[in-house]
C-alpha cells in the first residue's frame, strides 16, 4: 500500500515536490531547489558534520566577585538549553564553568577587582566554553592541573578544580603565563 503511494507520488508528483521548497529560501539558495526530503537530509548532514551547522555565540563579562560564580554557570546553562541537553549534561557544564570562574576569582585576580570574560559557542552538537581572566597567570600549568595541587593556604580548597573540568568536559586546554592571565578552553559534545 505504502509502496503504491510512493509510486503514485513519483509518477505524478515529482515536479510538485520540487517546488515545495520555495525558490530563494535559505536552504535552496546555493544549489537550486530541493525536495523537502533532500533539504532535511542536507540539514541533518550539516549538523552531523559540524560544517554547515548553525553557530551561535554568547559573550559575557562579569566582575570578579564570588557571587558571579553562580550567575555565570546559570547563564551558560540557560544558553545551552537550546541544544536540548540532558540534566546530567547541564550539570556537568555548570560544574565546569563554576570551577573555571572560581579559579579566576580566587587565583587569577586573588580576590581583587577584575573582569572575567566568558564566551560560549554552540556549533551543531559541539559546545565550546572559554573563560579568561587578565590576572596573575600560572607559571607551571601542568603542575596546577595535577589533582589535589593548590596554592591556597586556608586548607579549604581541594585542588580539584581542573580535575573537575576534565572529568565533566571532553576536552580542557589551559593557556597561561605569569602576568598574562589565564585562558581556559573547554569542549563538550552534547547528545551523544
Amino acid at each position, binding site marked *: 500500500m505504502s509502496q503504491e503511494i510512493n509510486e503514485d507520488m513519483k509518477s505524478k508528483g515529482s515536479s510538485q515536490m520540487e517546488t515545495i521548497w520555495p525558490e530563494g529560501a535559505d536552504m535552496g539558495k546555493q544549489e537550486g531547489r530541493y525536495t523537502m526530503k533532500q533539504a532535511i537530509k542536507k540539514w541533518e548532514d550539516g549538523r552531523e558534520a559540524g560544517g554547515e551547522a548553525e553557530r551561535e555565540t554568547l559573550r559575557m563579562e562579569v566582575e570578579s566577585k564570588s557571587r558571579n560564580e553562580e550567575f555565570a554557570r*546559570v547563564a551558560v546553562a540557560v544558553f545551552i538549553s537550546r541544544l536540548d541537553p540532558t540534566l546530567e549534561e547541564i550539570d556537568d557544564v555548570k560544574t565546569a564553568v563554576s570551577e573555571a570562574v572560581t579559579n579566576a576569582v580566587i587565583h587569577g585576580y586573588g580576590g581583587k577587582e577584575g573582569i572575567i570574560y566568558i564566551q560560549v559557542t554552540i556549533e551543531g552538537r559541539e559546545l565550546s566554553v572559554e573563560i579568561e581572566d587578565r590576572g596573575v597567570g600560572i607559571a607551571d600549568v601542568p603542575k596546577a592541573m595535577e589533582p589535589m595541587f593548590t596554592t591556597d593556604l586556608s586548607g579549604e580548597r581541594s585542588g580539584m578544580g581542573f580535575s573537575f573540568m576534565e572529568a565533566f568536559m571532553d576536552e580542557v586546554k589551559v593557556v597561561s603565563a605569569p602576568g598574562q592571565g589565564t585562558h581556559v578552553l573547554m569542549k563538550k559534545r552534547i547528545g551523544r
Partner: protein
Amino acid sequence: MAEQEFLYEAKGQVLVIHLPKEVDHHNCRNLKYETDLLLAENYITKIVFDFSETVFMDSSGIGVLLNRYKQMERSGGKVAICGASARILRVLTIGGMGKLVPRYNSMEEAIAG
C-alpha cells in the same frame, strides 16, 4: 539569587550541618569560621553533612568536606553524609570522597551510624 546560609543543628555530641541548595565557593566562604567556632565551644564527636536540599555542588564542597574530615580525624571524631542525590554522589565520587565518608539515606541513620 538569595544568600544561602548553612544551618547548624546540635544533636547531642553530633553537629548536623544542613547544606544550602548550591554548594560553591561563594556559599562556603563563612563555613570554616562558623564550624571552627562551633567545634571550639562544643564537645563534638561527629559531623553529619545533610545534602537533602542540595542540587548543585562543585569542588569547593569537596574542599569543605575534606577539611572537616581531617579536622575530625585529628580529634578522633567522625564525619558522615546523608540525603545526597545521584548528582551529588557523582561529584563526591569524582572528588575522591566516595570511600572516605560513610553515606546514609536519612539524617537519623547518619547520626546513629
